[in-house]
């Protein structure tokens, strides 16, 4: 074994990092490669290619211990569905053996006494944790330029770069996850999606990601941003891989999360190969307005043609309040965040200012030093819209329109089985391009926010390339609990196309 640990793994099917989760799991099960070999292969790649700034923390001992345990289970034929498969976690999930920072200075070096439920479930299914991935601070952002943490291989905070063009953003907030998967630094990663934080970076980095129905995956151990919106989901190269991972991540958590749904665990792979003959795909006209750039429009429309070839029927539908979802989301999410982030006060854990005159000063200096600009902005917005005299006009009004938006979807699903459209109006933009224009960032979330507000499952799959040869993703939105159907539709598309297996140059 130890001999095998030292030499480069000799994988019969090419380089291990080119294998999908499904392929890798099969190799491991057949003992053609050991979990330790797989873990070492990816740890070596991560060490060798830190320039993307995707990883924030490694703990090789902990990784290899998990890998050895996986090999023992594989030997004992008591292996889980993901036994030995390396995976990395967005640093919004707390982990016992890796620091958990949420990309914030507030939590530099924070050690959690417990693992997030999603992390524990993946470990239970046999997955081996490679480390923690960079993200926007407290998952607030869509460019990953808001991380205050220093990636491995760097000496100061550094924005994550898009493997398809390192001068561009990977998207966010799960930008580290998307970049790492696209660059083959990990076969798969976890992400979280509050207003598009899985779907948009997946789209920008040319990978596949899915956000399940709100309540499918436990939020216990996910550092909270907006409680009524946050959902965990997998990010990988294919719908088939996502289905495998999602099945391991979801399930009720009655003792830990009151909002986790009482639904039995589900095998989201079971419908992957079903025919989509006659599938009615709704095309919301509001998703194809003048806000949508021509290159993205062309790629998405080509994909829709492909779906017609596969036997699907396209139906025009309307989601009339699509534009309203921007103000509604950017009131509700900051309101919840302003309250969720009050626990960061320098008393029990996290950053505390070095110098202060009294308690009030300690609070203010601690929070002003610990939080970055975007987080402060959202805390300010949230505090304001909940404050006396403004609650009804802003927060309550937003929650009412939120219901109208959710009802619009139920109307639409009378005419169609699932909804398709762009994930974002453009491809990934240049680092720094929008960094001093918060509102411009908010507006770019327009297509992912409606499903988030309604708590619906949504995913992004690569459907081509747009401006500057950057990847374009298409969004599929399903009704509540229809993840299997979404993954089925995506898998059928990926069975006929190869957009999802394209690699950035030099990877």
């Amino acid at each position, binding site marked *: 074994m130890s001999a095998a640990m030292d030499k480069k793994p000799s994988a019969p099917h090419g380089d291990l990092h080119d294998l999908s989760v499904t392929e890798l799991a099969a190799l491991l099960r057949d003992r053609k490669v050991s979990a330790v070999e797989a873990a070492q292969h990816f740890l070596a790649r991560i060490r060798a290619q830190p320039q993307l700034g995707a990883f924030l923390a490694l703990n090789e001992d902990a990784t290899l211990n998990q890998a050895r345990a996986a090999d023992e289970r594989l030997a004992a034929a008591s292996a889980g569905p993901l036994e030995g498969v390396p995976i990395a976690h967005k640093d919004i999930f707390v982990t016992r053996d890796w620091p958990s920072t949420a990309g914030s200075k507030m939590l530099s070096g924070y050690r959690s006494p417990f693992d997030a439920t999603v992390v524990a479930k993946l470990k239970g299914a046999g997955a081996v944790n490679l480390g923690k991935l960079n993200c926007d601070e407290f998952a607030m952002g869509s460019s990953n330029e808001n991380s205050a943490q220093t990636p491995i291989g760097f000496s100061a905070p550094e924005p994550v770069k898009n493997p398809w063009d390192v001068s561009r953003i990977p998207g966010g907030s799960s930008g580290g996850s998307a970049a790492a998967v696209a660059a083959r630094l990990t076969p798969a990663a976890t992400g979280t999606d509050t207003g598009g934080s899985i779907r948009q970076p997946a789209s920008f980095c040319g990978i596949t990601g899915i956000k399940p129905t709100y309540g499918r995956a436990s939020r216990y151990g996910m550092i909270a941003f907006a409680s009524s919106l946050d959902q965990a989901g997998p990010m990988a190269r294919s719908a088939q891989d996502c289905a495998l991972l999602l099945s391991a991540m979801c399930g009720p958590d009655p003792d830990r999360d009151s909002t986790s749904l009482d639904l039995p665990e589900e095998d989201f792979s079971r419908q992957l190969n079903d025919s989509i003959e006659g599938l009615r795909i709704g095309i919301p006209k509001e998703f194809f307005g003048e806000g949508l750039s021509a290159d993205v429009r062309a790629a998405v429309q080509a994909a829709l043609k492909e779906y017609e070839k596969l036997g699907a029927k396209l139906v025009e539908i309307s989601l009339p309040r699509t534009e309203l979802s921007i*103000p509604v989301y950017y009131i509700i999410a900051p309101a919840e965040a302003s309250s969720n982030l009050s626990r960061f006060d320098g008393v029990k854990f996290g950053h505390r200012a070095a110098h202060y005159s009294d308690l009030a000063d300690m609070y203010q200096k601690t929070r002003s030093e610990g939080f970055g600009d975007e987080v402060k902005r959202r805390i300010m917005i949230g505090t304001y819209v909940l404050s006396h005299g403004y609650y009804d006009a802003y927060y309550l009004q937003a929650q009412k329109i939120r219901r109208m938006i959710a009802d619009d979807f139920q109307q639409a699903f009378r005419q169609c089985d699932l909804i398709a459209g762009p994930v974002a109006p453009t491809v990934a933009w240049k680092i720094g391009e929008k960094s001093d224009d918060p509102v411009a960032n908010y507006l770019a979330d327009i297509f992912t926010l409606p499903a988030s507000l309604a708590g619906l499952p949504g995913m992004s799959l690569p459907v081509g390339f747009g401006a500057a040869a950057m990847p374009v993703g298409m969004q599929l939105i399903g009704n509540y609990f229809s993840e299997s159907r979404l993954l089925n539709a995506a898998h059928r598309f990926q069975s006929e196309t190869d957009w999802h297996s394209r690699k950035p140059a030099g990877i």
Partner: protein
Amino acid sequence: MSLTSSDIARIAKLARLELPAAEAERMRTQLNDFFGIVEKMRAVDTAGIEPLEHPVATFQDIALRLREDRVSEPNQREANQQNAPALERGLFLVPKVIE
């Protein structure tokens, strides 16, 4: 509507954030930009619409799950306090609280 610098000061105090003059002014501009896109939302007629706090509630009835009254958390003070900025004899220390 437009936020004044005194609004910014009031909100910052509520949120326990310290904003130097320049930062406060930039914050004021950015928040006013944002509330510009919020105006549309305020005009929407929502008479008789129930606010939606829990997304899935549009789709199915939801009710708070209740836990049996059992104690199952052992003392893990050491692990729970490992990140504490200031401790003494198991207590978290803060600047004197004046009542």
